């Protein structure tokens, strides 16, 4: 086992033992961190590895939340099954949006705007859909005295904590497995230069769809948990634009395109958000939290645009090296800068500069950029 696996194991073990001495409030707060990390991992699969920028992940989150909650509340379906259906629903919607976008070559900014448009469209539909309660919201009934958490998947702070810890660990393991498989290499090839990858025979369309579906499905599961824990769902709070933006902040702060980044980011961003909100309330100054949050975001992106994890990983000697198996490379036919491709290399993210302009313009721009 490599050093990173040991580090991960120690980390998970520490978190698993934590409830022995922590208050319920701390556990609830950490549960929120886990949910953010889970969504961060999902979003990062799509953005950090496959290079597709989504600004509408709240859609999958909200669909997951409503699916699990409505199935449990109205039809008595245990969330064990509900979660599976939520995954399928999230993945299906993501596939639809992805297929539409990729088939018509909607890229870069345009793809990001397409995801926003679908998410907002979804929010408004939910707000007017009486089946899901509309803007009135959907509420879970109070837990009965005979509730069995392992069946209803609803319980106290400790239960939620462990449930999310297990889900998060599983999602992280899944992301490691996928990213280090052949699929992961091809994703990065697409991210770094889609046209070149395609020219070399990488089935870009199908692989991008896979990334989008996996990402949407995992996000829906995070939403499902959030609905079960919160108990009340409003379209604006589980499908709103603000949520989509909150989702992307954690992985970016932690380090896009890294395996640990989204988790690190969630551990930084969520407590920061909570702290600044409490500070604003205590001081009685509305908006102070937004101000602090905004300033810190700008500071992070100006000082460390690659995120925190690459920096920490170097300090801890945990630089993730993707073992560059020659066979893989030959099959892919794409040279991958293995040393830093998982530690925050994001140059490959096709920016608007090279997409929405004339060739002469593109040339002018790429001259001062490292890769392409």
């Amino acid at each position: 086992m490599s050093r990173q696996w040991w580090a991960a194991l120690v980390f998970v073990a520490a978190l698993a033992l934590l409830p022995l001495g922590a208050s319920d409030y701390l556990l609830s707060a950490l549960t929120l961190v886990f949910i953010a990390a889970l969504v961060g991992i999902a979003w990062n699969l799509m953005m950090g590895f496959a290079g597709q920028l989504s600004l509408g992940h709240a859609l999958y989150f909200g669909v997951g939340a409503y699916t699990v909650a409505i199935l449990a509340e109205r039809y008595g379906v245990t969330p064990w099954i509900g979660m599976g259906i939520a995954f399928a629903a999230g993945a299906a919607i993501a596939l639809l949006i992805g297929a539409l976008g990729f088939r018509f070559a909607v890229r870069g900014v345009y793809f990001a705007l397409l995801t926003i448009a679908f998410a907002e469209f979804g929010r408004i539909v939910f707000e007017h859909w009486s089946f899901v309660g509309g803007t009135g919201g959907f509420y879970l009934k109070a837990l009965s005295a005979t509730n069995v958490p392992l069946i209803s998947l609803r319980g106290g702070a400790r239960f939620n904590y462990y449930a999310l810890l297990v889900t998060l660990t599983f999602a992280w393991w899944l992301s490691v497995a996928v990213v280090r498989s052949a699929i992961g290499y091809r994703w990065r090839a697409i991210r770094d230069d889609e046209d070149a990858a395609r020219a070399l025979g990488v089935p870009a369309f199908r692989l991008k769809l896979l990334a989008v579906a996996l990402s949407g499905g995992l996000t829906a599961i995070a939403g499902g948990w959030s609905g079960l824990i919160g108990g009340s769902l409003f379209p604006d709070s589980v499908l709103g634009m603000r949520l989509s933006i909150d989702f992307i902040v954690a992985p970016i702060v932690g380090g896009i395109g890294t395996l640990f980044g989204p988790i690190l980011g969630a551990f930084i961003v969520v407590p920061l958000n909570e702290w600044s909100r409490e500070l604003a309330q205590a001081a009685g100054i509305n908006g102070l939290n937004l101000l602090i949050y905004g300033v810190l975001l700008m500071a992070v992106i100006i000082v460390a645009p690659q995120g925190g994890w690459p920096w920490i990983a170097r300090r801890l000697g945990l630089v993730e090296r993707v073992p560059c198996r020659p066979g893989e490379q030959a099959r892919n036919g794409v040279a991958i800068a293995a040393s830093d491709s998982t530690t925050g290399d994001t140059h490959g993210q096709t920016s608007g500069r090279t997409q929405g302009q004339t060739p002469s313009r593109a040339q002018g721009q790429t001259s001062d950029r490292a890769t392409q």
Partner: protein
Amino acid sequence: MNELYVGALINGLLIGAVYALIATGLNLIFGVMRVVNFAHGEMVVIGMYMGYGLWRLTGWPPIATIPFALIGLFAMGYGFQRWIGNAFVARPQHVQFVLYIGLALVITGVHAVIFGPDPMGIQSAASFDVYRVAGLRIDATRLHAALAACVLIALLWAWLRFSLTGKALHAAADNLLGARAIGIRTNHIFALAMGMGAACAGAAGALLAPLYDTQPYLASEFTLLAFIIVIVGGLASLPGALLGGVLVGVAEAFAAVVIEPSAKSLFSYGLLIIVLVLMPQGLLGGRQGAGR
């Protein structure tokens, strides 16, 4: 019933002109730098607070505050781009996004800290004024705002077309390398584009102040609205922004009449999806917009 549709059409046209001014600003910024200004709606709200604040202090009608909004926001936009933004022009998109989202949060936070979160409306006798034309009642404030917006768009247009600086902006938008080669200072040009874009947003905000109650959290709606208009009209196309603004204004007004008022944005997002997928260059997309 006829009166209802004609009324909605006029309403949509008038508000669409103000939308167009907002979108023109966003378009200018994107056209020159290929940067998506996520803080655009927040800049509109700065203009709204300027309009509201000056009305409170002096009692001037908001149209009189346009020069202040123009100058103030130009200075802010120029300064921000020069000191911070320019370093990000060549960075990957998501990095730019975070910068501007951070800026948006900061602006909203500052508004909430200074003015509080409560909606503030300009309540004056003038807000009940109407013009009666052929049996129709046209809201005077709205008409004035629309006319002022059209004048501003026309002025901007003329400036871009005929002034030397305007031509330099055009050149930078068309071919950055070439622009550099002929000695255009791109740092200045980028900052200028951001300043002009912000000034458009601010002026539109000053015009909106008597129409909508101002509050800090309005901003994201304006940002999204401007995106929709710009995409529908065609990125980097100024006539497109005007057409898109009016189209979205009218479409929303009609959607409110025909479907359900609370669902009217559904129509805009639907339009956005269709245009993105089927006509990616927008309805009046220029050369740049088409070259994806």
